[in-house]
């Protein structure tokens, strides 16, 4: 059972993601954010569960849908918004934009916009960890689209072979852009894709943050103890359009039934109900958290607005190490 303190932390992380993403969507029409945004809305339970279940020295590698991980790990909100604004005070100094969240301080090593591309890199990070004793667990976070790529299987095979301390975390939101899983695979038990290669897998409810948290904790402990990799599939549903701030619930690719079910079971509501019921959190406390979150986001947006854009002379900085204007 997840401790009460942890449950509230998880809820607060999720809340932070939700409100931040809502703010992003709200700002977006002003064109201040000129970057393709892939929101983590309705997938906060996975981001929060994974981020908090891992230790402070563990490392995560994510995708272009990376705001959630960044926030849940405790990445500073200011540099996030500043990066969306492409300012020099952004987490990538205005060079990466929305798709390339990074905050090595909190162990988010980088998010990549090429599907599955970070999976082998995370595997290499796990190799480095193992070479140094294996105490650091690595999480590769990716979508259900990533399991289409060969490099996913190659990585799982290598991780199994070398018994690497890595968790392969699949956020199965049923879609890759507008392609449902069923148009890309005959079979849909993604968690089984590593089985024959020696990577045990399991499928979990991705909308229940305590389930996510506990499953990651267990798998991480096992990996840290030398138990090797795990493939953890979290089932959720993408509520927003693939990219952009809006909803596209009328679009033909949508599975009406799954959508209706998802709309009825918001992971943030599920978490809120848990903290209220299990931890006895009061309405006043909830309001305070909302207010605090809002204050942080306001401050982050102000930070972004106040930031200067990078100067043209900075263009060639960091192409190579040490080269800067």
């Amino acid at each position: 059972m997840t401790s009460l303190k942890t449950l509230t932390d998880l809820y607060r992380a999720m809340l932070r993601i939700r409100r931040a993403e809502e703010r992003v969507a709200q700002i977006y029409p002003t064109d201040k954010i000129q970057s393709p945004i892939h929101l983590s809305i309705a997938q906060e339970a996975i981001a929060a569960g994974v981020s908090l279940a891992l230790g402070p020295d563990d490392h995560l590698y994510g995708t272009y849908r990376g705001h959630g991980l960044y926030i849940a790990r405790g990445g500073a909100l200011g540099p996030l918004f500043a990066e969306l604004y492409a300012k020099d005070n952004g987490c990538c100094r205005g060079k990466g934009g929305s798709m390339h969240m990074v905050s090595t301080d909190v162990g988010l090593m980088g998010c990549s916009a090429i599907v599955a591309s970070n999976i082998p890199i995370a595997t290499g990070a796990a190799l480095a960890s193992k070479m140094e004793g294996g105490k650091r667990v690595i999480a590769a976070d990716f979508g259900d689209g990533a399991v289409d790529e060969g490099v996913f299987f190659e990585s799982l095979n290598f991780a199994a072979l070398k018994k690497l301390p890595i968790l392969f975390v699949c956020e199965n939101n049923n879609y890759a852009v507008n392609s449902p899983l069923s148009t890309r695979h005959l079979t849909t038990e993604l968690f089984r894709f590593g089985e024959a290669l020696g990577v045990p897998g399991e499928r979990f409810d991705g909308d229940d943050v305590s389930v996510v948290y506990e499953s990651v904790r267990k798998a991480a402990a096992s990996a840290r103890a030398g138990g090797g990799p795990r493939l953890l599939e979290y089932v959720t549903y993408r509520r927003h359009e693939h990219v952009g701030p809006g909803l596209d619930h009328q679009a033909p690719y949508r599975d009406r039934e799954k959508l209706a079910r998802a709309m009825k079971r918001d992971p943030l509501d599920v978490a809120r109900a848990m903290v209220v019921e299990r931890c006895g959190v009061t309405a006043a406390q909830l309001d305070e958290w909302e207010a605090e979150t809002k204050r942080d986001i306001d401050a982050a947006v102000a930070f972004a607005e106040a930031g200067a854009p990078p100067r043209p002379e900075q263009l060639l900085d960091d192409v190579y190490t040490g080269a800067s204007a």
Partner: protein
Amino acid sequence: MTSRKITYCAAINEALTQAMERDPKVFVMGIGADDHKELFGSAKGLLQRFGPERIFDTPISESAMTGVAIGAALEGMKPVHVHIRADFLYLAMDQLFNMAAKWRYMFGGSRSVPLVVRAVIGRSWGQGAQHSQSPQSMFMHVPGLKVVMPTTPRDAKGLLLAAIADPDPVVVIEHRLLYDIVGEVPEEPFELPFGKAYVRREGKDVTIVANSYMVAESMKAAEFLSGHGVEAEVVDPVSLSPLDERTILESVRKTGRLLVVDTSWTACGASAEIAALVADKGFDSLKQGIVRLGQQPSPCPVAKPLEDAFYPSARKIARTVFEMLDRRVPEAEVPALTHKFRGPF
């Protein structure tokens, strides 16, 4: 032939529609090919018209899907494999370079590979480092492939139809910022030849060889230059492999000066090849050194001021020409080309 003005995107769509109508062996495949976004509109109506056997979505497996297209082509089909970003082609290089480009040759001519690969260059609105690349030079480097970069709606239709009709693998690199431009396009199916460059604008003072979206920037620069007494000739190779050497060399013979502008980086880029060509076969026509413009040597950044510094532009082209001619850059700056592109795809 009757012709009317349509967009680049509509021209691609028309080419696909006509090719699929005429030849049941033509089919379209690619990530998202059959969804309601219809490959930025370029696949509009194909699903309704030709059904899910002839236009289909694929798993996100660029390498295998390229192999699948090659295999189908070998066996007599005519696949058109679409990538909404050219950056994703890096996952398919093994199949394209080691297999498609070499199949016919290494088996002594046994079978051809009538494959068409369409890939779109992204730009702006935060595409960033991984959604903005123009890998044409890599395809030009490897014998066995043909490479074209359509610039006008007419090119887009005529070259796509030619690519589909061609027995060998052809890589068609489109530019997202060209999708909405409008131009005259014949209604009937027609093919444009490979290896033919177009003089987009005549001039006597300097030759600008530019491709794809860089033609738009170059035309804008040329207009401005003209207002200051400099007549630039703009030559668009369109077909990069095979390359129409003659048209380029003839233009340089006339102007004696060459600026090459490519959508990608300069190092070993298409611009290097064109410069090297002229430095060999056109040397005697040259009055001065050949200048190249391309992306600055960095990954593509997101912030606008960096992006402006990163990409070649009408402004930079005009400045460069003034410098080549040893003329003072006039006070009135070249207006920047404004592209309306907004939003991620």
